[in-house]
């Protein structure tokens, strides 16, 4: 079943068309990769899907419902979460607290109830902390639970951001270059984490430059070049696609 359905979406900045009439579907329970050379419009597409930018044309439907005009927090509430190419962590908060912020939409404690510390809010808080420990273990960042985000090593910061996104209980998770800055061993761990997340019932759409990881985990790949979709299909076909090889010529070896 199609969880995300994008139809003819476009975005222009001044004279530049960053995303040009792109359509695709993401099916429930799959890992889909979004690749393309630098400046292909991948991050802009992410911003359009998650409400950080408004498309000039086209539509996005999530779980069958249109997302037009929805603001980022409403899209999170609808079940779509994301990470950023430049991690957007809360530096002065601990890893646990970062993940707890991710549970914002699922927790109910408001200003009044929080100020009065009603008994049910304490129980809710306790459960939330347990769940954040579980999520940090899931991505492999448990040993930094009490560290401030500012003090956490670079590779782990990306994992922490994934944990925070998972905390929103998403149906679809959008990851923007999760393997950037990771070494080979860390990338292998990430790959198994991504599969485990998928097996837990979360669909994934991943922007990634590490072709090894892309070919390893994704069931389907969509390729953008200069804002346009130039190919879509399973990894083996994409590797042989002439247009894709053309787009990447001088960039990097697709099969690497």
């Amino acid at each position: 079943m199609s969880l995300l359905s994008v139809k003819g979406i476009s975005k222009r900045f001044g004279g530049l068309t960053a995303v040009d009439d792109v359509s695709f579907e993401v099916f429930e329970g799959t890992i889909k990769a979004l690749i393309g050379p630098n400046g292909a419009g991948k991050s802009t597409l992410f911003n359009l899907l998650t409400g950080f930018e408004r498309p000039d044309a086209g539509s996005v439907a999530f779980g069958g419902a249109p997302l037009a005009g929805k603001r980022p927090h409403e899209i999170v509430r609808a079940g779509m979460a994301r990470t950023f190419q430049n991690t957007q962590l809360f530096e002065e908060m601990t890893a646990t607290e970062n993940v707890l912020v991710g549970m914002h939409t699922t927790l109910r404690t408001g200003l009044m109830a929080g100020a009065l510390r009603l008994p049910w809010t304490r129980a809710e808080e306790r459960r939330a902390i347990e769940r954040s420990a579980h999520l940090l273990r899931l991505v492999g960042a448990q040993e930094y639970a009490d560290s401030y985000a500012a003090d956490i090593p670079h590779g782990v910061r990306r994992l922490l951001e994934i944990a925070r996104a998972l905390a929103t209980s998403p149906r679809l998770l959008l990851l923007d270059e999760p393997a950037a800055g990771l070494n080979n061993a860390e990338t292998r761990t990430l790959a198994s984490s991504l599969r485990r997340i998928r097996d837990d019932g979360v669909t994934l759409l991943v922007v990634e430059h590490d072709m090894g990881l892309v070919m390893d985990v994704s069931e389907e790949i969509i390729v953008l070049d200069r804002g346009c979709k130039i190919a879509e299909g399973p990894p083996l076909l994409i590797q042989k696609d002439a247009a894709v090889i053309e787009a990447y010529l001088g960039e990097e070896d697709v099969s690497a």
Partner: protein
Amino acid sequence: MNSAELLQFVASGLQNGAVYALVALGFTLVYASTGIINFAQGEFFMLGGMLAVAGVRFGLPLPFAVLASVAGTAAIGLLFERVALRPRRDSGPLVLIIITIGGSMVMKSLARHAFGPNELTLPPFSPGDPIVLAGASIDRQVLWIWGLTIVAVIALTFLYSKTKLGRAMRACSLSHDAARLMGIDTARVVMISFGLAAALGALGGVAVAPLTQTAFDVGARAGLKGFAAAILGGLGNPIGAVVGGLVLGILESMSVAFISSTYKDAISLVILLAVLFLRPQGILGKRGREKV
């Protein structure tokens, strides 16, 4: 209201407007080179007037006292940047502006210790009766204000377009990283911007002091109005600062002419808020886009 009266109001509008323009230029210079708003800009205006009064009391001839006060304020501006802002220049804008707020508190308070809490008067630059022009009487000091503003604007234009320093300043206003790659000492440019901004503020303060008196606490109002002028014309745009200052001055004096003098000060505040809320890039500025 007859035409002579109207002319009188226009003249007084242009008088205040020229002073606002000088203060606004100071805001704009600092904003262009650092991207921050200097909340101590109004205090430079105050120091200009106060130091000149102190110079005259000390026995300096008036022209020297005026020059010394502008130079002295510029030195204070340079020093303030070097000591209080440069060590934190990599912090977010909020930290820097709070430092400038602290700086304005300290400058104002030190001025009170040094010069006392009372209003002080500076003698006019050229004594004599007001000049009558088409029925409107214009104080000789007003001519000084206009003249000095014009000289300052011309000098600044020359600096910006014809000198190496000016090119460096323009490069910094576009991108510090790019400027550094071009071999520009950005730290020096930022410091000089503060010095120039202080000198411009002081010039406004010293030029208007013979007409309005001055005191340790005149900085905040002057700073607000100068900022209103700067943002009206588009922050970071020197021409906009001058236009914004003159427009603000005229609007104020027209409000006195046609509405009432009660809310004269509120006019610039309302304009300030209206521009901030509706068109923060200013009337002359282009709409920018925020990048995610």
